[in-house]
């Protein structure tokens, strides 16, 4: 799924106009210039987390969770100093889950650079809009 497709799906699910969404989203503070500039690139999970977190904050006016301790079980949380809070907020709210590399559940990671398929992305959007 590309960044553009993800943003359009989010808008469609939220009942928002997709026309001019990039500029509107940047002005409202939930999209970045890179989302428009690199719109046709596949969207990484860290960017899904960023967009959904900022959408919650700026559009739905949902303040951040103060306690992000549950996200500390993600081994790669601090691999990304810029997106750590985006990932933590979305993870702690149960919108996106960890990926487990070991059967015993001892190595949970978010997979920042990984991708999610269309069904997963739709589910993330649905959970976001339910909050």
């Amino acid at each position, binding site marked *: 799924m590309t960044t553009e497709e993800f943003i359009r799906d989010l808008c469609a699910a939220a009942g928002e106009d997709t026309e001019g969404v990039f*500029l509107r989203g*940047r*002005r409202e*503070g939930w999209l*970045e*210039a*890179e989302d428009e*500039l*690199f719109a046709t690139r596949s969207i990484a999970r860290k960017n899904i987390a960023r967009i959904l977190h*900022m959408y919650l*904050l*700026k559009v739905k006016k949902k*303040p*951040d969770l*103060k306690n*992000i301790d549950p996200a*500390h079980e993600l081994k790669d949380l*601090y*691999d*990304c*100093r*810029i997106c*750590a*809070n985006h990932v*933590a907020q979305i993870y702690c709210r149960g919108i996106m889950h960890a990926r487990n590399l070991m059967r015993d559940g001892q190595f949970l990671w978010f997979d920042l650079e990984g991708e999610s398929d269309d069904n997963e992305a739709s589910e993330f959007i649905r959970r976001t809009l339910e909050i």
Partner: protein
Amino acid sequence: MISNRPSNIDDKRLRFDSFGKSSNEIFKDKKSRLPAMGWNSWNAFGSGNTEELTKAMAKKIKDLGLDKLGYKYVVLDDGCYRPERVEGRLQPDEVKFPSGFRSLADYIHSLDLKFGMYNDIGTKLCSGAEVGIYGYEKVDCEDYIRWDIDFIKVDNCYYMWDNATFADPTNAKYSYAPNIRGIAIDGEFKSAVKDAKITGTRAEIKDDYVTFIGTFDGTAPDHTPVGIRSSELIFEIESDKDRETDITVSYATGEEEGVGQWLQVAVGDEIFFDDMLPVTDSVTAFTDSAPIKISLKKGKNSIRIMNHRRQENTLHSYAEIKNELINAGGDKDIVFSICEWGKTQPQDWGHKVGDSWRILNDITFQVGADGDHGTAAWESDYTTSITSQYNKAVIMDEFAGPDKGWNDPDMLVIGMDGINETMNRSHMAMWCMLNSPLMLGMDLRRVEAGDFIHTLISDKDLIALDQDILGVQAKRIFTTYKCDAPDKEYIRNNKRIDVLAKPLADGSIALGFFNLDKAERNDNISISVDDIIAGIGHRMADSESFLKADSYTVRDLISKEEYNSTDRRFGIGNIAACDCKVYRITPAS
């Protein structure tokens, strides 16, 4: 412009062996200066900072009179650029900064403040914007001069030659030497395990080879910054005359933290090999290198098997930027803030190029946004708390000074959620005792003249400690935690009280008692004049007068009470959770 391998380092002044030499060895005009003070956009707004918000912050600095206290620099952090170059040049994000950077700089300068910007030694910024300075040092520095910057913060994401944040993890191949089983010289095999000496504490013996030849990754709070941080493998070889000979190295390569592919071979301080070795099948599939020609002197020779490129490459990258700023701007005064998060032990080399160097990863990742204060913490297992940063900075005093630069435990988190007034007060006092840069990180629009935050960040007594012209960072002279060397030991258990002493230019000292514990403590702690002299006497402006004084003027910098004392001991009986007592003690007459 983008190379596929680290640059050759022909300048010996950028080499590990020169790290201890004078701070202005490379840049003759490197200025002696006090820690920078100002405001940085990151903790307040993250990537969401804008021209409008920045102007509002600058105006509020003036309105609150913070500029008169020294808060001069207004610094744009990550998130301000268009995420792709236009014809090879940086551009502002046109939605966030519609008037452009020069216009914003002019506005900030019109308020008699100073303007700072941000970039990264890698190919991208930490935000992912594809405008890192790597390969564009010259044009970017020309633009920074054109935009009239007074300050630059340079980050370390997506760095080509280390496994830094977002960088290719296999870049570790540049950061560590291969595993080494031994060398062959004059037809004789010398075992790395049996015949060599390991320096430092990084390398270790595994089976019949030595691994982790390099330096620690200091990004996380796992390793002390004190002592020899880099390991080498040393073979002592006797020679009966000056001569040239060949050695071969038995090695196995990897591309992970601890095992790399880049090898340096030196005899004494002369480097004979500094390059990648051919890849082996695995980290334990040893093979012999091609012959490496070395020169031996008559007598004892130290053949050094090493890789200091993790530090040297990073220094080289920062020096290149500094060089281009000078080429473009001449003697324009620009504060250079190194932000590689302590990864490559910048306390060793930062003084040669920078005015400060971050010592760890960020103090918080829960940064704010317009309308959200963000969240900070008093303690955490990682770097993301006041005490995490303090615990490392407090043993780094010997690395800092006006002629060197400053340890940077990151921006102030005063005003963020998650910390109470007591924690905020101790945080400010700690940063001032530690001579940290004082970069505010809050939305200043919420600060009103005379409120708690304004009073705290305007505290002239505390700021005077940070900006004292003697420029000596406080030393920990006592801690209730059991240890042999309070000034050197890296202590991460916060159930303790620390006592810090700081010499000041007028002959007085500051004495700080910090309760790191989240519970009240009732330890009776008493520090004598002799204890103070023993701890910091060698760095005091006038230790003799302090020692021989009959009485002292004691000013409590927190309560603002002042009294005279003939007692030669200073102490506390109990102290609230996370609280501090800081005294300025001046010998009478």
